[in-house]
C-alpha cells in the first residue's frame, strides 16, 4: 500500500513573503496580484483579516479599510524559493518528492518507519523542520496524492488517513476540498451535492456525460484516486532565494541586511541536505530595469552564512551596484562537504570546513588573488608569481622521510658555538625597483634605488637571461649580484631591450 505525504502551507504567497521579510510578521499584510491599485488581493494575514480585509478586494479598497495595511505584490521568485524550501524539508525523509503547481509538496513516505516510530511522529518532525525554514506547514499522510493533499488541508496541522480508510475519511468532508471549478461547484450545489461522499456516490459515467472529463476526474478524486503516479524530482544543484524591495536601496548597509536574511535562508536549506555552498551568484534588479549579475566562487565549500555574507559584502564594497537596488536574488551552488582521512604520519591539519571558512574570510580581507599556495609559474621569467588554490590534501609525507630531511638540515656543530647552515633566501621586490646606476671606468660603481643605495662593494655577474622571444613580450636581461655599502646584497638586472636597470630582490 503506497503512503503519500503532503506538505501544505496555508496562504503560501504570504508565508513566502514573511519568510524573507520577517519584520512583517504580526502586522496586517496583504499580497496582491500586481503592484497597481486595481489589482486584486490574493492572500491576507490574520491581522489584516481581523481589520476586514479579504481576498478579492482591489488594492485601493483594501487600503481604504486600514491605513496600517501593508500591501506587497506577489513575487514569483520568493514563492518558488518557499516551494523549494518545502521540497528540501520533504527530501530529509524521502527520495521521491514532487512539488505541485499550487505550492504543495508531495512525497513518498512508505517505509518511513525506519526514520520515525510512527506517522504522527514523522509529521511532527517535518512540521518542526518546515517551521525552522520559516514556513508553518500542515502535513497530511494518506494512501494517494489527492487524499494526502486533502488530509493536510483538513487536518489543521497534522492529518493522517490510516491505510484503507481513505474513502471513509473523505466522505464527510466538504466538496470544496476537491477544488472543483466554479461552474461545476454551482451545478453540484444545485443538485444538492455537498460533500465528497455525495460525489463518490454518483455514477462516474453519468457525471462525465453531464460535466465532461472534469466530472470523471472529480469522481476519481472523491474516491481518493490519482490521475498520475508520484514523479520524484532530483535534488537541485542550485538553491535560489529572492526578495523584491519596497523601494530602491542605495547604501551598502541596508543591502547587506537584506542579503543576510537571504543567505540565512540558503544556509538553512543547504544544511537540510548536508551540503555546502561552493559559489554564490548575486543578481540585483536595479532602478531603471538594469541588472547586476556577479558569480562569486568561494575558496572552498562552506556552510557558514557569515562567510558567504563576508564574500558578498567584500565584493559589493569593491564593486558597488551603479543604481539603487529594487530586487535581490541569491543562488548558491551546492557542493558536497569534504571529509578528511587522517594520517598516521602527518600532523592533523585544520578541519576542511574551518579551512574553507578561513580562506574565504582571508580572501574577503585581502582579495581572492592574494590568498593561495605559491607554486612554480610556467614561465621563464624569474619574477613571475603563481598562486594555486590552497588545500589541506597535499600528498603523503612519512615521518621517516621527514626526519631524514630534517637530518640533512641539521647543523654541523663547532666547539662552543652552534653553527647553522641554511640556504640563502631572496626577498623579492614586487614590482622590481627602478635603479639609478653610476659607472666608473666602465665598471658599476654606485647604485641607488627606492629606500636603499650605496657604493658597489662586491659584484658578481653578469648572467644573461633571455626568453619568450616567441611571444609579443620577450625579455633579455643581464643579472648581477651586488653588495652595496649600505650592507645589502641585491639581485639587480639590466633590461637590455629598454635599457633600464632594476632590482628584483635582496638576499637575506
Amino acid at each position, binding site marked *: 500500500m503506497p503512503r503519500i505525504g503532503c506538505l501544505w502551507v496555508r496562504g503560501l504567497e504570504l508565508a513566502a513573503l514573511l519568510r524573507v521579510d520577517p519584520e512583517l510578521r504580526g502586522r496586517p499584510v496583504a499580497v496582491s496580484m500586481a503592484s497597481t491599485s486595481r489589482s486584486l488581493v490574493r492572500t491576507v494575514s490574520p491581522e489584516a483579516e481581523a481589520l476586514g480585509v479579504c481576498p478579492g478586494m482591489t488594492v485601493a479598497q483594501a487600503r481604504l479599510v486600514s491605513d496600517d495595511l501593508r500591501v506587497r505584490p506577489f513575487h514569483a521568485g520568493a514563492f518558488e524559493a518557499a516551494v523549494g524550501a518545502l521540497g528540501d524539508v520533504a527530501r530529509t525523509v524521502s527520495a521521491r518528492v514532487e512539488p505541485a503547481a499550487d505550492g504543495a509538496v508531495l512525497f513518498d513516505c512508505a517505509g518511513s518507519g525506519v526514520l520515525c516510530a510512527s506517522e504522527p511522529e514523522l509529521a511532527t518532525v517535518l512540521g518542526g523542520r518546515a517551521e525552522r525554514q520559516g514556513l508553518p506547514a500542515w502535513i497530511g499522510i494518506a494512501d494517494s496524492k489527492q487524499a494526502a493533499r486533502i488530509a493536510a488541508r483538513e487536518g489543521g496541522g497534522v492529518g493522517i488517513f490510516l491505510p484503507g480508510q481513505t474513502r471513509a475519511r473523505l466522505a464527510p468532508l466538504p466538496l470544496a476540498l476537491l477544488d472543483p471549478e466554479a461552474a461545476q461547484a454551482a451545478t453540484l450545489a444545485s443538485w444538492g451535492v455537498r460533500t465528497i461522499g455525495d460525489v463518490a456516490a454518483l455514477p462516474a459515467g453519468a457525471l462525465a456525460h453531464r460535466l465532461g472529463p472534469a466530472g470523471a476526474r472529480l469522481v476519481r478524486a472523491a474516491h481518493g484516486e490519482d490521475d498520475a503516479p508520484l514523479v520524484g524530482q532530483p535534488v537541485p544543484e542550485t538553491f535560489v532565494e529572492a526578495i523584491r524591495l519596497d523601494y530602491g536601496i542605495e547604501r551598502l548597509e541596508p543591502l547587506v541586511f537584506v542579503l543576510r536574511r537571504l543567505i540565512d535562508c540558503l544556509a538553512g536549506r543547504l544544511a537540510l541536505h548536508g551540503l555546502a555552498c561552493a559559489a554564490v551568484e548575486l543578481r540585483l534588479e536595479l532602478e531603471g530595469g538594469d541588472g547586476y549579475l556577479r558569480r562569486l566562487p568561494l575558496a572552498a565549500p562552506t556552510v557558514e552564512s557569515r562567510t558567504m555574507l563576508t564574500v558578498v559584502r567584500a565584493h559589493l564594497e569593491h564593486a558597488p551596484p551603479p543604481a539603487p537596488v529594487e530586487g535581490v536574488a541569491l543562488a548558491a551552488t551546492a557542493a558536497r562537504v569534504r571529509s578528511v582521512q587522517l594520517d598516521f604520519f602527518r600532523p592533523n591539519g585544520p578541519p576542511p570546513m574551518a579551512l574553507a571558512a578561513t580562506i574565504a574570510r582571508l580572501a574577503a*580581507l*585581502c582579495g581572492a588573488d592574494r590568498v*593561495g599556495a605559491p607554486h612554480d609559474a610556467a614561465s621563464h621569467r624569474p619574477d613571475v608569481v603563481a598562486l594555486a588554490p590552497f588545500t589541506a590534501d597535499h600528498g603523503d609525507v612519512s615521518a621517516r622521510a621527514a626526519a631524514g630531511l630534517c637530518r640533512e638540515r641539521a647543523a654541523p656543530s663547532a666547539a662552543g658555538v652552534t653553527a647553522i647552515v641554511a640556504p640563502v633566501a631572496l626577498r623579492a621586490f614586487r614590482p622590481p625597483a627602478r635603479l639609478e646606476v653610476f659607472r666608473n671606468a666602465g665598471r658599476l660603481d654606485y647604485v641607488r634605488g627606492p629606500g636603499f643605495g650605496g657604493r658597489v662593494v662586491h659584484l658578481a655577474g653578469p648572467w644573461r637571461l633571455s626568453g619568450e622571444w616567441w611571444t609579443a613580450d620577450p625579455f633579455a636581461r643581464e643579472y648581477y649580484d651586488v653588495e652595496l655599502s649600505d650592507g645589502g646584497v641585491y639581485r639587480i638586472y639590466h633590461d637590455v631591450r629598454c635599457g633600464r636597470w632594476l632590482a628584483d630582490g635582496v*638576499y637575506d
Partner: protein
Amino acid sequence: MGGVTELVGPRSSGRTAVAYAVAAAVTATGALAACVDLPDALDAGHAQAAGIRLANVLWVRPPDERVALRVAEQILGAGGFRLVLIDLGEAPSPRVAGMPAVWMRLGRAAVRSGAIVVTVGGRRSAGACAALSLEISRRQVSFSGEGGPCPLFEGIDGRIRLRRSRALAGLAADARLFAATAA
C-alpha cells in the same frame, strides 16, 4: 607548545634564511604552514630551494599591518597550522609595535593552537608578548673568485644572538649562521 618568536635583523643578515629553514623543517613533516607576507616578498623558487613544501604553505599577502595581524589571528583561529610566519618587512611601522593587545591575543592563540608564530622584521614588534626574540646580524658577505673572470656570490655569514627568552630567562646564547646560495 606554541608561542611568538621574533627574528630581528637588518637587510641581508640572513633572518629570512632562518625563517625559511624553520618553515622547511615544519612542512617536511607534512604539517601546514602559513606565510603572512606583508611586503609581498616571498620568492617561490628560493623557498622551494630552501626545502619548503610549497603545497603545504598558505600564502597570504595582506594590504597593511593591521590586516596582516588580523589575518594571522584568523589562521590561528582555524587551527591545524603548525607555523605562522609573519613577514613585517624591512622596517615595520611603529603602529605594529603599538598594538600590544593584538600581540597578546596572537600569543594566546598560538599557545592554544600549539602553533609557532615567527615574525621577521627589521625591529622588534611583539615586545613582551614574544616568547623568544633572536637578533640576527651580518658578519660578512662572501664572494668567491674576486678579481677573477667569474666572481660568485657565495652566501652571508651571520650571527644569531638570543635577546629574550621567556622559558630560559637570563640565558645568553650565540649561534653562527651561514646562509649559502644553492650553487
